[in-house]
């Protein structure tokens, strides 16, 4: 009696879950293999992170590298493990909701301490 309109993820033997080819280094039929490759990517990025920190770059470069790699890993986990690539747009849009509020939180709480930014005006250039 339930009429779930979830044909998008009608899971049968033959998964119609394409992985982007660059992720799996070529076409792969078996989603298990696809997920394994995603895992290997995650391992790779983690090693890159550790390597980056051992290089001891400057503060700015370190921040960009670490944050960037974290964001990439986040994308991998979200898109594939959490199924967002193949989910309906409702999921992606729901997940995007906190973005604005997170930014407000980080700016307002993270950067308003007396030592953080001496004068926001100076930073913003006026």
């Amino acid at each position, binding site marked *: 009696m339930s009429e779930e309109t979830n044909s998008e993820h009608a899971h049968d033997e033959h998964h119609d879950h394409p992985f982007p080819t660059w992720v799996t280094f070529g076409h792969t039929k078996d989603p298990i293999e696809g997920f394994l490759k995603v895992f290997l990517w995650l391992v790779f990025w983690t090693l890159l992170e550790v390597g980056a920190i051992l290089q001891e770059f400057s503060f700015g470069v370190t921040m960009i590298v670490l944050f960037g790699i974290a964001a990439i890993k986040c994308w991998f986990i979200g898109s594939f493990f959490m199924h967002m690539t193949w989910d309906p747009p409702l999921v992606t849009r729901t997940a995007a909701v906190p973005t*604005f509020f997170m930014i407000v939180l980080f700016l*307002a709480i993270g950067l308003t*301490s007396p030592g953080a930014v001496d004068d926001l005006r100076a930073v913003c250039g006026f």
Partner: protein
Amino acid sequence: MITTNLKKLSIGFLIAILVAITAFPTGNGLPTGITDQNTTETVIANGCTCHNTDTQATNSVIVNLTLPGNFTSGETYTLILNLSGGPNELSDGENRGGFFITASDGELSPIANDSLVQKPFGLTHLTHTVEGNDYREWTFEWTAPDKQDISVEFVAYGNSVNGGDGSQNDYWNKQAITLYGVDAVIEIETQKELSGPQKIIYAFAIIAVTLGVVVIGNQMVTKDQAFEEVLKGYWKAIYPWLTTTDHKYVGTLYICTGFAWFFIGGILGLLIRWQLMEPRVDGDFLTYEEYNSTFTMHGTTMIFMAAMPIIFGFANYLIPLQIGARDLAFPRLNALSYWLLPTGGIVLYMGYFTGGAGDVGWTGYTPYSSGDSSTTPGTDFWVAGQIMLGASSTLTAINFMVTMLRMRAPGVTMMRLPLFSWSILITVFLLLLSIPVFTVALILLMADRTFGTLYFNIDAGADPILWQHLFWYFGHPEVYIVILPAFGVLSEIITTFSRRPIFGYTSMVYAMATIGVISFIVYGHHMFTTGADPLFRFIVMLTTMLVAVPTGIKIFNWLATMTGGSIVLKTPMVFALGTVITFTIGGITGIVLASIPIDIALHDGYFVVAHFHYVLVGGTIFAFIGGVYYWYPKMTGKMMNEKLGLLHFAMSFIFFNAAFYPMHNVGLSGMPRRYATYDASLADMNEFISIAAMIFGFSQLIFVYNVFYSYKNGEEAGDDPWDGWSLEWTTSSPPPHNSFTEIPTLKVAEEEKQ
């Protein structure tokens, strides 16, 4: 002739002098100290009762007696008695203090050649001399008795003299200390006296138990039932309530619980107003610390245990009806959300049983709340209780978001949702994103208090302002969380009683959504005096003023709705109209406070208290009382008494304004908030406010009576007594068990014409 007259005159004078002498108050407060036997006995029995019009000891006078740790027989010790507190803080000067001390054993004696202390002839105690009454500290000696395995009790009285007025307006206190000999066996001291609030709570408990006994006993006698049968009968009635997951019953539980806590919060509010009836010294009615607990618990109770539950109660009851669903998406989770409320409330109030409830303000600013000066464990209970309440709100938010987005009936598109539903949807969206921040803040506070973390510890380099950021990031959306549903209720009532749809439905929806989003970027206006960055303050001032625009749009839309309609003036509508007026006033004072320079002057004063009571009581509470009058027929199938309703409105509206409007004035005059006393020049205003507030409080009893009376004797309501058009009015009153027998389809009026 003169001689005869002179004789008469001199006799007359003598008599006059004798009368004067006998009429002279022979109080215990002799500037010469307590020197005669009779007075001594009176003082030992009653204390320095001639001082202080209340003849009671006052907690604010602190009598400090410095004693050695223990005594050895025959040794002589130097003791110091010191007085502080009381009507004035000057330590020395004419007529400042007096004392009287007894020891149950051993011998007290003044130090040789000391002119400040005397031991009256033939008596065993020490007291001050005339010269000694200009001081507040006296030193003397005590020689221990022969035995050193006994304990000696010292009773010291101190009188804090205000330097004039005879014995009026002096305050005294007494201190009893037991000193043990080196070989004495120390007895464990028994429990101290109960605090005021503890007494009240125990009194209520005793009354409740007595009532329980009477009710059960009555049942046993009149129905000839055994004790177990009576209990089983009640259990059978209660058990369904404990286990329900039906949105209507959970909603009813929420509403009843919310109003019950509203009354408790109201009593706390009346305690505040009684305290502020006149300027008082510490301990006169409440101690200053008890006052801090009172306004803290008043605020926390009103917002978290009254306003939000009432809102969720109506939401629970009505949202599924308004969107045409059978229940919420997660009914059991809903029940969990509800039960976290009374249990969390009990945890919150546990402080009253353990030495003092949380006294950190409902805003709980650090480092006061993270340090030693806040009550312990009262403040810890305050934190723990709110963690539970925060969890409750989060689960509710998840439930409602899923329900309202997924479970609408056919035809109920988003832009056809009733405005109350829209208001709840946006409210839960705000809850979803702001409560977690507050919960984390509470956990950090608990960690600082309990586990020694340093998040708010200045010495460790932390920033107590972090708390303010975290709190107000939640706190500001929170106040919109309590007002948006009120806007929703107003829209419902005004449209039904103007007999026309809302003017500008789309703009109403967008206005509420805009208010919701902007509410996250205005919170800095609570922090104008923290030394925050000027640019941050400027941005926040602008956004705060900006949020008035959508709010104003809503107010104008309500007015336009009424202008274009034909008004039916029943109680719900009367409350709605009153709400629009008082909320608008509150909104305007909010804009006044948005201006940084004005706020810096008025921050933490009564102008702010006036502002938020106008929007919270004049906005949320009045709107939801109107909501009760409006939806009561739907929920119970009975109509409420119209006359009582109008009387309730008149009393509430008049006395609410009488109580809270003058707060703007005293605030502008500089009266600070959260102070247990104030400058004497504002006494008349405050007395007026207090009396008005008490009448306002008591007039709510009319409402309570109406609710109960109408449940038994109200007129039958029928499905749609007010001729409303939203889906809840299509089902019976009260709705059947599964709310709708068939899921309805919402049609638009134009469609039906075909």
